[in-house]
């Protein structure tokens, strides 16, 4: 189905289109949400929020970008807000300090000194490092590295200039290199 047709059906509220849109974009949305949040439950909750927002606010989609760009934009915003809200709540609930300490210990514990790292361990090391980045750097890295989007598309999704995207990715990779080398150093 053509993108313009999808948008039209969404605007008309045609019942069949919701499952169709979900099937087309669920993998993409879940991929971003699972990397931007810290648990499977949180990611699935975010995915639901994203699709509800897409269906509810299709009339505000100006159609000056691809539908996928708009859906990415919604996904990123929802995940950033969720993470921010979670930080505020955990800070207020006084579990904050315990959790911060716990997270660091967990990240270090999961690196084994040997050369052969399990796939999940490998993912965990890199994901943990990415999760410690400031929100904008983290978003830029996820969209570039895993979604393989162009700088231009990332700039549209994040609402920043092309040079800002370059700068965010540059700083993000410098930070990640330092973090990953430090993780490895602990065991050698």
């Amino acid at each position: 189905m053509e993108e313009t047709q999808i948008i039209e059906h969404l605007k008309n509220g045609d019942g069949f289109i919701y499952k169709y849109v979900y099937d087309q974009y669920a993998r993409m949305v879940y991929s971003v949400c699972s990397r931007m949040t810290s648990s499977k439950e949180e990611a699935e909750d975010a995915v639901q929020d994203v699709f509800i927002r897409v269906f509810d606010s299709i009339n505000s989609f100006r159609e000056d970008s691809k539908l996928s760009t708009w859906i990415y934009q919604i996904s990123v915003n929802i995940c950033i807000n969720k993470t921010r809200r979670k930080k505020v709540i955990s800070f207020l609930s006084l579990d904050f300090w315990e959790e911060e300490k716990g997270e660091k210990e967990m990240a270090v514990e999961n690196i084994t000194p040997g050369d052969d790292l399990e796939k999940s361990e490998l993912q965990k090391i890199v994901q943990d490092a990415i999760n410690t980045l400031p929100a904008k750097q983290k978003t830029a890295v996820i969209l570039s590295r895993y979604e393989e989007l162009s700088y231009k598309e990332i700039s549209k999704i994040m609402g920043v200039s092309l040079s800002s995207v370059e700068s965010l990715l540059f700083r993000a990779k410098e930070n990640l290199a330092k973090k990953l080398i430090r993780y490895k150093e602990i065991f050698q």
Partner: protein
Amino acid sequence: MKHKKIQKKFLLYIDGDLSETEKLLIDQHLDECAECKRHFEELANIWNEERILESPLPSPALWYDLKDRMEKEAEKSNPFRAIVGNAKLLLNSVITVGVVVIAIFIGSRFGNLLSPQNASQNVTYAQSENSRDEFGMSYFDAVPPNSIAKDIFITGLDKGGIQK
């Protein structure tokens, strides 16, 4: 310090984000520094291998969770459905109000409490002569002739009662 500066650029080097001059500087350092070379190889291994790992997939049940949530939210935002949904509550309220109205009606009908006509009669009962007859009090008004009780009655009761 120089090592740290070089190491910081490793991921940019691996991803091809550096200029030729910068790359050359790093190549030169790696040729001379075994420790940085080791870090570089390990980092390249982690960074390149992790990227090609499969993206996580949503669970198949997720669509049904979403559908369920959409239906619930549609119910919330549809006023007609909201009324139907609250019909039980509405019915309970109507029954409660009805029972209270019927109770008040029965109470006022059989208890003669609220009728203004009856309310004024209450006052009359207390003050009129007729009330004495009604309660059989007129019997005590009939004082025998020359009875000493007459004086007592004259002084003790109002004139209306005695003259009869």
